[in-house]
C-alpha cells in the first residue's frame, strides 16, 4: 500500500479519480495472461506525457516501482508488479493522433488497440502489418514494449520493423524523442529500436510513429491438409527454401485443431494430422500464381488436399479461430504454458520432431502451433500447476527444448518476450559480457531500478 502522503501527491498530479487503489482495482490489475499474479500497490491512469513525467519524478525520488501495462495480454509476466509498485495504464491515451498517408506513417498514443490502427490504416489504403493473435485487444504501446510479432512476420517482419520514432519518458522525468517521420535515419544510436522489446524496463513510451505500407489489393487463404506432421514441417522448410514468401505460413497440429474446434464457425479439415494455414497477398495476378505454386509444393510433399477459403468472411473465421488457440487449450487442462522457441526455418522439421519426442519422453500433452514460415514455434504445454510431479517433468522438457533451439542457432523467444517466464534461461543465450552490457544499458536509463523490476536483465535466476 502507498503511504497516504505519496498517494495524495500522485492524486494531485492525476486527479483524484485516476489513482485507483480499491481492493477491486488491485485484484484486477494483478495479472496479465501469464501464470503468476502479483498485487500492485496502486494503479495510475494518466492522461498525457506531462503527467507521466511528473509521476516518474516522484517515483524516482521515492523509489516507487513503475510497471507499464497495455491490455495485459502478454504471456511472459511482463506487466505485473513482481515487486509491488504502481501499475501505469494507458486507457486514457488511446488516440490515433494523425494518419499521414503522404509520409506513409501514423502517429499514435500507446493505448491504441492494434486492430483499430489496422482498420484506420486500411481506410487510407495502407497496412500496419504486425498482427499478434491478441490484435483486437492488445495495444500498440504493449506491442512496442514486447516487440510483438504475429503470423504475417514471415513476410512483413515484426513491430520493430515498423517503428520510425518514439516519445519516451525516462525515470528522471525527462521526455526524449527518438527517430522521426523519415524511413531513413542513421543519426546516433538507434534508441527507437532499443526501446522496442525492452519490456518496460527502460522508459515509458508515450507516443509512437509507425510506418505503414500499401495495403495489398488481393489476398488468398489456403489450408493444406497433411496426414503426417513431419510432411507438413518439411513442406514449410521447402517453400521458404525455394524463395517463395507467403504473407503467413502457419502450422497447426491435430491436438490444437481439436481444441479450437469449429470456433466461430471456422471450417478446418477434419482429416488433418497437421495443417498449414497459408495466406498469399499482393496483386491479383501474383497471388493467383503464388497460390498455385504453393499448392503444387504442398501436394508434391504429401498434402492430401489444399483448400481455398471461398470468401473473405470464411478466411476471417479461420484466422479468428486460429487466434483463440491459446485460450482454447484451457478447456483441456487448467494451465497452459506457451513456449516461443524459434529456430532457423531450415531446422523446423528437426525441432518439431524434438517437441513430439519431449511430449512422449516426459508424458506431457503438448500441442504444436507454429508461425512456421519464420521458424517461430509455439508448443503449448497443457498442464496443471498444482501437480508438483508433473511440473518437474514440464521444467525438464522446457529445459531440453531451449537447449535444442539454442543449439541450432535459435532463440529463447521469437515474439513473446522474456519477462519472468524465461529470465532464468537468459544466460544460456547470452555470454556474461553481453548480459553485462544489457545491465549497463538498464543502469543508464534507470539508475534506481524503478522500472518494471524483477524482469530481465537484472533477474536471470
Amino acid at each position, binding site marked *: 500500500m502507498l503511504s497516504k502522503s505519496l498517494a495524495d501527491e500522485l492524486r494531485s498530479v492525476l486527479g483524484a479519480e485516476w489513482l485507483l487503489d480499491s481492493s477491486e482495482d488491485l485484484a*484486477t490489475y494483478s495479472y496479465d495472461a501469464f501464470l503468476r499474479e502479483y498485487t500492485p500497490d496502486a494503479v495510475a491512469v494518466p492522461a498525457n506525457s506531462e503527467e507521466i513525467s511528473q509521476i516518474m519524478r516522484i517515483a524516482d525520488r521515492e523509489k516507487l516501482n513503475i510497471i507499464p501495462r497495455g491490455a495485459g495480454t502478454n504471456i511472459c509476466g511482463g506487466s505485473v508488479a513482481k515487486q509491488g509498485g504502481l501499475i501505469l495504464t494507458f486507457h486514457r491515451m488511446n488516440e490515433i493522433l494523425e494518419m499521414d498517408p503522404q509520409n506513409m506513417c501514423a502517429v499514435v498514443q500507446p493505448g491504441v488497440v492494434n*486492430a483499430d490502427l489496422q482498420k484506420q490504416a486500411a481506410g487510407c489504403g495502407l497496412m500496419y502489418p504486425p498482427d499478434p493473435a491478441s490484435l483486437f485487444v492488445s495495444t500498440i504501446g504493449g506491442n512496442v514494449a514486447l516487440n510483438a510479432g504475429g503470423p504475417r512476420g514471415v513476410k512483413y517482419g515484426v513491430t520493430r520493423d515498423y517503428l520510425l520514432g518514439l516519445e519516451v519518458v525516462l525515470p528522471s522525468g525527462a521526455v526524449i524523442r527518438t527517430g522521426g517521420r523519415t524511413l531513413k535515419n542513421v543519426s546516433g544510436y538507434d534508441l527507437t529500436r532499443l526501446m522496442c522489446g525492452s519490456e518496460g524496463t527502460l522508459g515509458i513510451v508515450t507516443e509512437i510513429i509507425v510506418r505503414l505500407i500499401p495495403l495489398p489489393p488481393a489476398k488468398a487463404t489456403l489450408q493444406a491438409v497433411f496426414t503426417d506432421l513431419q510432411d507438413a514441417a518439411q513442406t514449410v522448410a521447402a517453400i521458404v527454401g525455394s524463395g517463395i514468401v507467403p504473407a503467413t505460413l502457419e502450422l497447426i497440429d491435430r491436438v490444437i485443431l481439436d481444441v479450437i474446434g469449429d470456433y466461430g464457425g471456422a471450417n478446418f479439415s477434419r482429416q488433418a494430422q497437421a495443417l498449414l494455414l497459408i495466406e498469399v497477398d499482393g496483386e491479383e495476378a501474383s497471388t493467383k500464381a503464388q497460390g498455385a505454386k504453393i499448392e503444387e509444393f504442398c501436394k508434391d510433399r504429401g498434402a492430401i488436399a489444399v483448400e481455398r477459403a471461398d470468401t473473405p468472411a470464411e478466411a476471417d473465421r479461420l484466422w479468428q479461430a486460429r*487466434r483463440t488457440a491459446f485460450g482454447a487449450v484451457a478447456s483441456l487442462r487448467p494451465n497452459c504454458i506457451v513456449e516461443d522457441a524459434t529456430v532457423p526455418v531450415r531446422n523446423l522439421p528437426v525441432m518439431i520432431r524434438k517437441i513430439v519426442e519431449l511430449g512422449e519422453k516426459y508424458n506431457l500433452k503438448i500441442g504444436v502451433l507454429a508461425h512456421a514460415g519464420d521458424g517461430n514455434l509455439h508448443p503449448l504445454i497443457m498442464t496443471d500447476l498444482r501437480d508438483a510431479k508433473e511440473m518437474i517433468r514440464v521444467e525438464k522438457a522446457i529445459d531440453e527444448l531451449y537447449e535444442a533451439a539454442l543449439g541450432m542457432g535459435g532463440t529463447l523467444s521469437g515474439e513473446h518476450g522474456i519477462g519472468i517466464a524465461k529470465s532464468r534461461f537468459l544466460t544460456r543465450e547470452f555470454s556474461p559480457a553481453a548480459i553485462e552490457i544489457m545491465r549497463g544499458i538498464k543502469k543508464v536509463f534507470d539508475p534506481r531500478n524503478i522500472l518494471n523490476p524483477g524482469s530481465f536483465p537484472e533477474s536471470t535466476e
Partner: protein
Amino acid sequence: MKLEHIAEEFDQCIKCGLCLATCPVGKELFLEKYTPRGKIQLAKFYGRESLDLSAHCRDIFAKCLLCGSCSVTCPSGVDLNKVFVSMRERIADRRGFHPRVRQALDSLLENHNISEDANQERGEWREDMRDLPADMYEKDRAATAYFVGCVASFFPTVQSIPRAVAGILTAAGLDFAVLAGDEWCCGFPLIGAGAPEKARALMQHNLEKINALGAERVVFSCPSCLRSWKEYYDPDLELLHDSEILDNLLSEGRLEFQELNLTVTYHDPCDLGKNSGVYEAPRKVLEAVPGLSLVELENNRDRSICCGGGGNVEMVAAPLSESIARRKIEEIQATGASTVVTACQQCVRTMQTYLRRHKTALEVLDIAQLVQRALKHDT
C-alpha cells in the same frame, strides 16, 4: 446457480483477454474491473471470500448487460454470463438489490409488471385497433398463446408491435389467444437482478394460465421473455419467437408481401441471437419482402453488439446505457440504411430513446411492424 457450484467456470479462465475485444461495457469504462476478464477475477476472489462484497462490487457487477458477448467470444468455453448472474444472486442475497433497481423490483413484485401501472392495464395496446374482434383475443381455449411481454404492453411507443403481431396472425388465419390482465411479468428482471426465487410465483402463475388455455405453443415478441421461459420455466410447450412463427407462416404460403423499396439493416437482439440462437428466421422474413434490401451490420449475428438496453443497466447507469446505444446507432448509420429492423421491443425502445434525445433521423422497426407494412392486405 450458486457461486460455489461454478468454481470450475472461473478456474478455466486463463486471462487471455480476448473478451475485452467484444464487451460493450468494458469498451466504455475501460478499467479492468469492468471487463469480463476482470469480473471473473473478482468472482473468483469473492467466491473464496478473499474480498468483501462491497457497495463498489455491487456497482461493478450491476454494470453488465448480460448480453453474452463474452461467453460467445471466450475460447476456453467459460460461461461468463452464468458467473455474472450468480454473482448478482450472491450480492442480492448478502447486500440486497442495487438501490437504483430496488424500487422498480418492489413495484414489479406488487403489480406483476415492470411499469408502475396496475396489471389490468396490460391489454391497453388493443385500444384503437381496427378490426378488433369482440373477444379481444381473450379465449377459453387456444392452441397458440401469444405472450405479449411487459415492454410491448405498457410502453406506448412500442404498443404498435403487439398490434402488428395480432394483425398478421389474424391475416394468416392463425387462431391465438392472449392472457391480457392474467399475463404477469415473466420474471426476467428479477432473474437478472439476482433473485430468481422471487420470480417463482410469477412463473407458476403464467404457466398455469397458459396450461388452462390448453395451449401447445407460446409465441413471444420479447426475446427476454422467450429466454426466461426457455431457461427457467422448462414447460412441455413449443416456445417460439414471433420472427420464427412469421418465418413458418411464410414458408406455408400464408403471408403475401407487396413490394417495399427499402434498404434496411438488422440488429440481432442479444436474447434472441447470442442467448437463444435465433439468427436466421428474422433474416429469412426480411429477404422474403420483394424490393427490400438487407445490408448487414459490421458486427452481426453472434458478434452483434448490445443496444445498451440489457441487464437492467439502464436503471443503474443511464449514461453508460446511452453511450453504448450511441455506438450501436453509429454502426447502423455506417451501413447507409435508412431503417434498422430488430426483433425486440426493448431494443426498439432503447434505440428510439437515443434517437429522440439526440434528434437523429433513423427509422427503427420491430420485425412485426415491418411485416405489417409489407402485407398485401394490411389488416
